[in-house]
């Protein structure tokens, strides 16, 4: 035995691997069940009481906007960290979904219960077809193409004066009341989050991750990478179009500002802050960034400066992302031991 020197050091221990496998061990005791359930329940319950906790109608509306950004960020994280496609197409998805829902509602007279599902699926099909030629591209090249599309569509609508031109499509039906609006979109975010988390660990999800790690080997394994990339783009753009359709119904309007670059950039910032590759991180990132951006409205044009400062601070202090850090801390415990 070494003599004790009186010095102490901090020891880090991983929680047993059995607890985290989420298999049969997870239900072996209450302690282990809680270990898995509490963080998930905290998120779900937290999301559900958010609208009730908001002080005013204005802030309740902000929660809806947070959720729309959260859907986009979820799609971005899925594409970037599980399929290897860096997409700047948030604005494209929002615009296509929004315009589609508006047209279905105003021209064809469909109710919200019909416009939102059709705009989601139909919009995802349109976006996937538009992005099909870009699918062989990787990394920054794919990003450039996805960034270009919303700009092109915006100019086309402007120049040809179609779909309401610069005025947009007015008179889109609103939700019956604000509770339906909020709980519907919150529910969508929760379902999408847990659905995607499940998907990436299924066998088909492993194929997506394989495409990210080594697409040549996926080809050599007899799978078409174009097919799987387009399925992934379909899923991500579906999430975005869902958000876009909601946005059109919330604002009762679809216009060219739905092709604004905010929808492409903010989800990426949220993913960086929240922690990429966790799927929860982007949602947490949106919950932080969107309200901050609203609070900063008081500063007028200086808003963007403060916004940039906060972003930079986050990236410098917690470059790995909040949720990556939080998950690591949760799965480890620390204690002081005598040396």
């Amino acid at each position, binding site marked *: 035995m070494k003599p004790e020197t009186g010095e102490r050091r901090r020891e880090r221990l991983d929680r047993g691997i059995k607890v985290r496998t989420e298999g049969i061990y997870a239900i072996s005791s209450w302690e282990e069940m809680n270990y898995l359930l509490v963080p998930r329940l905290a998120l779900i319950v937290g999301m559900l009481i958010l609208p009730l906790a908001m002080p005013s109608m204005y802030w309740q509306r902000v929660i809806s906007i947070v959720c729309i950004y959260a859907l986009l960020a979820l799609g971005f994280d899925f594409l970037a960290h599980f399929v290897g496609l860096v997409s700047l197409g948030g604005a494209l998805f929002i615009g296509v979904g929004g315009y589609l829902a508006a047209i279905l509602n105003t021209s064809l007279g469909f109710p919200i219960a019909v416009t939102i599902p059709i705009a989601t699926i139909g919009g995802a099909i349109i976006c996937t077809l538009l992005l099909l030629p870009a699918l062989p591209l990787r990394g920054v090249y794919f990003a450039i193409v996805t960034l270009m599309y919303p700009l092109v569509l915006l100019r086309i609508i402007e120049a040809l004066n179609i779909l309401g031109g610069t005025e947009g499509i007015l008179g889109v039906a609103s939700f019956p009341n604000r509770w339906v609006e909020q709980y519907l979109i919150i529910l969508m975010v929760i379902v999408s989050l847990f659905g995607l988390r499940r998907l990436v660990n299924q*066998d*088909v999800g*492993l*194929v997506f*991750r*394989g495409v*990210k*790690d*080594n697409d*040549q*080997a*996926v*080809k*050599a*394994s*007899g*799978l*078409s*990478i174009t097919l799987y990339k387009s399925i992934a783009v379909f899923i991500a753009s579906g999430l975005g179009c869902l958000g876009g359709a909601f946005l059109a119904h919330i604002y009762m309007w679809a216009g060219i500002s739905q092709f604004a670059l905010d929808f492409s950039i903010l989800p990426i910032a949220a993913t960086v802050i929240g922690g990429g590759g966790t799927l929860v991180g982007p949602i947490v990132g949106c919950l932080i960034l969107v309200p901050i951006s609203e609070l900063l409205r008081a500063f007028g044009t200086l808003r963007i400066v403060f916004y940039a400062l906060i972003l930079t601070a986050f990236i410098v202090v917690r470059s790995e992302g909040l949720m990556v850090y939080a998950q690591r801390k949760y799965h480890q415990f620390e204690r002081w031991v005598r040396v």
Partner: protein
Amino acid sequence: MKLEPILQVKNVKKAFGGVQALVDVSFSVNEGEIFGVIGPNGSGKTTLINCITSFIRMDSGKVFYRGRDISHHAPHKIANLGITRTFQIMRPYYSLPAYKNLIIPLFSPRAKRTGGWRGGGKLGDRDAVGIDILEEIGFERDSFVPYKMASSLPTGYLKRLELARCLALRPEIIICDEVFSEMDGITLIMIEHRLRELFRVAQRVMVLNFGEKIAEGKPEEVMEDEEVKRAYLGSDRSLDEPSEGGKG
């Protein structure tokens, strides 16, 4: 009656810019044969595989699989026919554990049809089939090795994992790009740069140099070929001598 060869390569040509990587290469491989392709660095071995499996488009020439023209099939279609390949530079799916690496080939239409490596109808639990294949190829089932992340495996295991990825498709032909292994019952095309190991297993060998086929035949005959000696050693030294100054 002569048996039809399983794979026929006819007059394949490929140029990268001004560099003629493959100059009119033709050969054929019979079913169940172990066929070796050797040649010094830059002689066009890997380009040849890439052309056969359509990973790059050849300038001209044709590839026949069981008499069927597959020259312009997409790479994944060729893999689904049962022609699989390994890669010279091993890049497993780093973010997945070793056995989960095999889920991806087992997800292919071919594996669904053939039932994976052991065959026999329906493909059951892919995880279990994956671990079976890994055990077959030397990953100890009861150790932690099959469950380790692919990024933490040593080179030997990575080579095996490459081969396991091919086996998961229940292939008819495996084209090995500089991987070393013996396998029975399957047609094997081996691309090697090192002569000794290849000559020990191959039944027939083809030698490439500067994209051109310079010799083909039984390993003993090829070893005696003057042109092969010159290509490998730049002299008339015998290939049996240890080639400390040469390639290897």
